[in-house]
């Protein structure tokens, strides 16, 4: 992680305030409609490693008071230097110290319970995780190998369908435990290359009957 070498670094948003407000709006929309795939439009020169959508999201959310944990392939990449330079965030080596976490596609995700869970008095202190996934699809169509989810909870009229690929096998069990520990628990953003899906801790996930 050579944070002093700026020669390969990309620029941030052209207009810092407007750019981060637009992405923040996307994050709000994603969390208020869990399971909806929302395209992130931004003009930041995102790093090579990691998905552009998650890079733009973190660029908008982080500041010098935030702590960020990066999965191994991101921690040694230009993404770490890029976020450090533009947001001034602090990188931490232990997942439980982080307010934000970013896990690259292909990296093993730490157990959800290992992130900061917040407390009953301050549930807002829990971690927010951004998870890069190769595939996200809001339709219930059956992709080969992709898990079909049925989402229920606040922000969803009846049921939302989502197919995701590349998650750990026991992810649903972890999520059920995370959902059950409400008001504590982590919030999740799933990111494909250009799209975000919000999964707040209030959403319950079941495998849909199609499989």
């Amino acid at each position, binding site marked *: 992680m050579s944070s002093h070498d*700026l*020669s390969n*670094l*990309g*620029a*941030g948003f052209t207009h*810092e305030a407007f750019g981060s407000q637009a992405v923040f709006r996307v994050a709000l929309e994603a969390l208020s409609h869990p399971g909806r795939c929302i395209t992130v439009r931004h003009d930041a020169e995102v790093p090579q490693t990691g998905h552009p959508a998650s890079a733009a999201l973190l660029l908008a959310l982080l500041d010098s008071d935030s702590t960020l944990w990066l999965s191994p392939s991101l921690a040694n990449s230009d993404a770490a230097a890029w976020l450090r*330079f*533009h947001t001034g965030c602090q990188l931490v080596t232990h997942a439980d110290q982080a307010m934000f976490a970013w896990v690259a596609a292909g990296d093993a995700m730490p157990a959800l319970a290992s992130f900061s869970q917040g407390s009953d008095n301050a549930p807002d202190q829990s971690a927010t995780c951004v998870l890069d996934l190769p595939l996200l699809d809001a339709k219930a169509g059956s992709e080969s190998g992709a898990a079909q989810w049925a989402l229920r909870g606040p922000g969803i009229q009846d049921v939302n369908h989502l197919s995701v690929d590349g998650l750990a096998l026991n992810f649903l069990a972890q999520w059920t435990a995370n959902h059950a520990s409400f008001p504590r628990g982590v919030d999740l953003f799933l990111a494909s290359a250009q799209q975000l899906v919000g999964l707040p801790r209030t959403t319950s996930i079941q495998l849909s009957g199609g499989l």
Partner: protein
Amino acid sequence: MFHAFDNHDPAPTMVRADWMALLSQAPLDLLESAVGAHWPAKPHWLRAPETGLMMVQGRAGSTGERFNLGEVTVSRCALRLPGAQANNAVVGVAYALGRSHRQVGLAAVADALLQDSAQQDLLEQTLLSPVRQHLALLRSQREQRAQSTKVEFFTVARESSSMDDEGEAS
């Protein structure tokens, strides 16, 4: 650690930190005349010029415990200049006291140019040594101003009956 960079003797090998320290104190008119022509038509900002506050810390007598002296207004920016090779662009970074975005932008351009060893000699003559002279001038003016308020204390010999007192006073 006390680091005096304004009474700098022109060492043969200047490292980047040396010229960045000089550029942060360079006045706008010197920067304008030396690197104004290199100002890119459409600067590629990594970090557009922005002004903020920084807490300055000091140590009494430069040895005591650190304490917060106060906040200063600082502008900073980082930009990329197209380098000799297309894939190897140079990044210039500058911090300066005050709110002049033009000044800090030009200082960043100068920092980027100085990283090219072909430009270093020219810029040393047109920019860095004038800045050093300017800072030396400011320093000597400040010293003279301080000198004019200097008070000399004299011990006036007073008449005394005792002989050994007289010996001490004279």
